[in-house]
């Protein structure tokens, strides 16, 4: 089990050319690939990543002239040096004259090449009201100024933690508003670990898939179910997994699930069936449209799309269609493109048959659903591929569809320990004499329905359901009585 996977190298903590990394500025993240002489724009600032190569992950850089990054000793929070907070703001009168430095002064400092950090310090020293402000107001002031004058960037290694926080903060719509702690729950409730055979159905830009892959570490296999023309894996790419991780990643179209369940899907029928290949082509058209728009958006936001020098091209077939499509547009040669496309299609079919075989064994070790589709039909059909005594987790942004899903799964039988839940997450400020929960919190991070599969003998199913409902009623008996009264 252990020999088929690349182990982390000794120098794994050093940033290399071609690495997928995440840039961090204050609490803002952006995923990029390190490439020499490639201009990166982040938080309205552009720079080159050439200088980060060879440094350790976690190193902090400052943007200097010409967009060059200079390593920088991590400064302690400026607040620790200026802690003379007023107890209250009784003496502050806002007259707009509290800052003694003029805009010209500041420009002069900048022109002298004074660093942003020092400018902020000077602004504080020249503020007549800073020391009288409450700590809250001081922090606010510093944050505002820091943001404006400093450009400190840390290069961190991508991980589920970083990428799920990044997506939730900046593009929650792309991951169906799944908060990072909700994803954390899914991975644990799903008992995701090395060696599993997992079914993943997600429309979360590939983030959930990436998280599952990270937890499986290249051991075991994953079948990704996808709607439309192909799976979306923009976020998966950002993890920068080694090639070997993709050897046992399969994809299977949702549109063929019923065939598979009916037994009408067969490996023989596939290659000759022209109707099918047409539909694939059509689907692919849709996919290409998707890719044309959707990663564009991403590019403008948090993920730099890699257009050339694509090290994972072989292993990430689906996203690699995008550069091809662009090539095709550039060349304007439709025939070449179609030939190339058909070769790819054959390859895809071969993988699809392998995926079908894996699914047909009906012994998956778990099922993860996190999509923009109604969860009920997905759960009802995909659970058929899961072995007994295995966990499954269904995410939905809304509670109501999961209430329905719960009800339908109960009717179906073969599942126990159904739990509908959400998590509630609160961050804290812990500072001497001023600790409290953060003033803003997330109102909701989505809902989960989880459970465990068990043997569901068809002949017994009816009585089984009845009994199950009897035995499975959750605890609060008293309450139930009250509820049916009211």
């Amino acid at each position, binding site marked *: *089990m252990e020999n088929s996977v690349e182990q982390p190298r000794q120098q794994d903590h050093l940033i290399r050319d071609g690495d997928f990394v995440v840039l961090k500025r204050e609490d803002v993240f952006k995923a990029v690939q390190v490439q020499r002489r490639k201009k990166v724009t982040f938080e309205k600032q552009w720079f080159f990543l050439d200088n980060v190569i060879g440094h350790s992950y976690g190193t902090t850089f400052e943007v200097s002239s010409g967009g060059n990054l200079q390593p920088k000793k991590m400064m302690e929070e400026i607040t620790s040096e200026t802690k003379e907070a007023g107890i209250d703001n009784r003496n502050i009168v806002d007259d707009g004259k509290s800052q003694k430095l003029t805009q010209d002064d500041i420009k002069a400092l900048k022109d002298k090449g004074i660093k942003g950090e020092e400018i902020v310090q000077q602004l504080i020293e020249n503020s007549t009201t800073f020391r009288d402000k409450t700590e809250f107001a001081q922090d606010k002031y510093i944050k505002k100024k820091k943001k404006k004058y400093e450009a400190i960037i840390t290069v961190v290694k991508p991980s589920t933690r970083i990428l799920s926080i990044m997506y939730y903060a900046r593009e929650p719509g792309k991951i169906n508003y799944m908060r990072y702690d909700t994803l954390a729950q899914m991975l644990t409730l799903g008992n995701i670990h090395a060696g599993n055979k997992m079914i993943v159905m997600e429309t979360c830009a590939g983030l959930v898939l990436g998280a599952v892959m990270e937890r499986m570490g290249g051991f075991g296999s994953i079948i990704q179910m996808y709607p439309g023309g192909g799976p979306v894996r923009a976020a998966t790419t950002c993890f920068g997994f080694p090639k070997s991780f993709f050897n046992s990643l399969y994809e299977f179209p949702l549109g063929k699930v019923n065939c598979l369940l009916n037994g009408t899907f067969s490996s023989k029928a596939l290659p000759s069936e022209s109707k099918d290949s047409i539909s694939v082509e059509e689907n692919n058209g849709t996919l290409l449209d998707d890719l044309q728009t959707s990663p564009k958006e991403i590019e403008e936001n948090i993920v730099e799309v890699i257009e050339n020098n694509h090290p994972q091209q072989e292993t990430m077939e689906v996203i690699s269609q995008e550069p091809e499509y662009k090539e095709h547009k550039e060349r304007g040669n439709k025939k070449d493109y179609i030939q190339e496309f058909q070769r790819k299609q054959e390859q895809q079919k071969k993988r699809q048959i392998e995926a079908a075989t894996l699914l047909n064994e009906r012994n998956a070790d778990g099922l993860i659903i996190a999509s923009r589709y109604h969860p009920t039909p997905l759960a009802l059909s995909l659970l058929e591929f899961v*072995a007994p005594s295995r966990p499954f987790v269904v995410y939905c942004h809304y509670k109501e569809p999961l209430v329905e899903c719960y009800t339908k799964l109960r009717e179906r039988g073969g599942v*126990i320990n159904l739990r509908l*839940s959400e*998590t509630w997450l609160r961050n804290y400020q812990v500072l001497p004499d001023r600790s409290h929960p953060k003033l803003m919190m997330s109102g909701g991070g989505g809902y989960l329905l989880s459970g465990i599969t068990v043997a569901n003998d068809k002949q017994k199913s009816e009585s089984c359901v009845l009994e199950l409902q009897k035995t499975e009623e959750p605890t*609060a008996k008293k309450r139930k009585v009250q509820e049916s009264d*009211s």
Partner: protein
Amino acid sequence: MSFVEYEELIKEGDTAIIFLGHGSMFPVQVQRGAQTQTKYGVIRHSAHLIGQPFGSRVTCSKGGWVYVLHPTPELWTLNLPHRTQILYSTDISIITMMLELKPGSVVCESGTGSGSLSHAIIRTVAPTGHLHTVEFHQQRAQKAEEEFREHRVDRWVTVRNQDVCKNGFGVSHVADAVFLDIPSPWEAIGHAKDALKVEGGRLCSFSPCIEQVQRTCQALAEHGFIEVTTLEILLREYNVRTANLPLPDLGGALDPLPVLGEAQFKIGVPLRETVGHTGYLTFASKSLF
């Protein structure tokens, strides 16, 4: 079975979870010839369990039936013998993600306690990682070691019986992550730093009281840890129910008899009482400099 690998069939020596319904369950150690008494009657291990697939329905002697489940760290957390207060899956989930655990990670943990988190860590870091867990209470350390053997995960874990605040984790510069669940975590921050890899790593400390958090955050700052964040996570569970709300009789204008009826709908209602606090989780990264 083991806690890090699914198997299809139940065999001698396995730990299995007997699920009675209602969320009620308990673990058994499968032994040829042994019997387990349940409210539905006796389960005979040789006849009912050994050789059967996990997930099977077992009809007990009195005609009632139960399901036999493959153990997972999450089921174990719900069924383990409590030797201490334990961490539950809601906290464990966020700890695992925020510590960036995955196959191959090396983790230091103290205290081992009842082993609830330990099993979850081992599950996640196997087959190429390792857990170093330190427990000052001797009986507890022994019991944990026994359980790890029974659950066939002992090759991925080293248990040490020592005081982490005085003697640290017994390893230096090997860990990707350190987890502390001890009364005075601030006393162990130095040792935690020492246990972490030279190139950095993640730390988490769990404390029920805010004063512990305050001291821990101060110690973390003093030891140069960065990205210090404290958070709290709570589970909010919903029961799915059919609710009936009667429609009020406002008096039909023409009909002398009241028009009565009721509206029925499926709802997800929050539990009336729920866990309001487990502990604060403080996370930090070891600084490079």
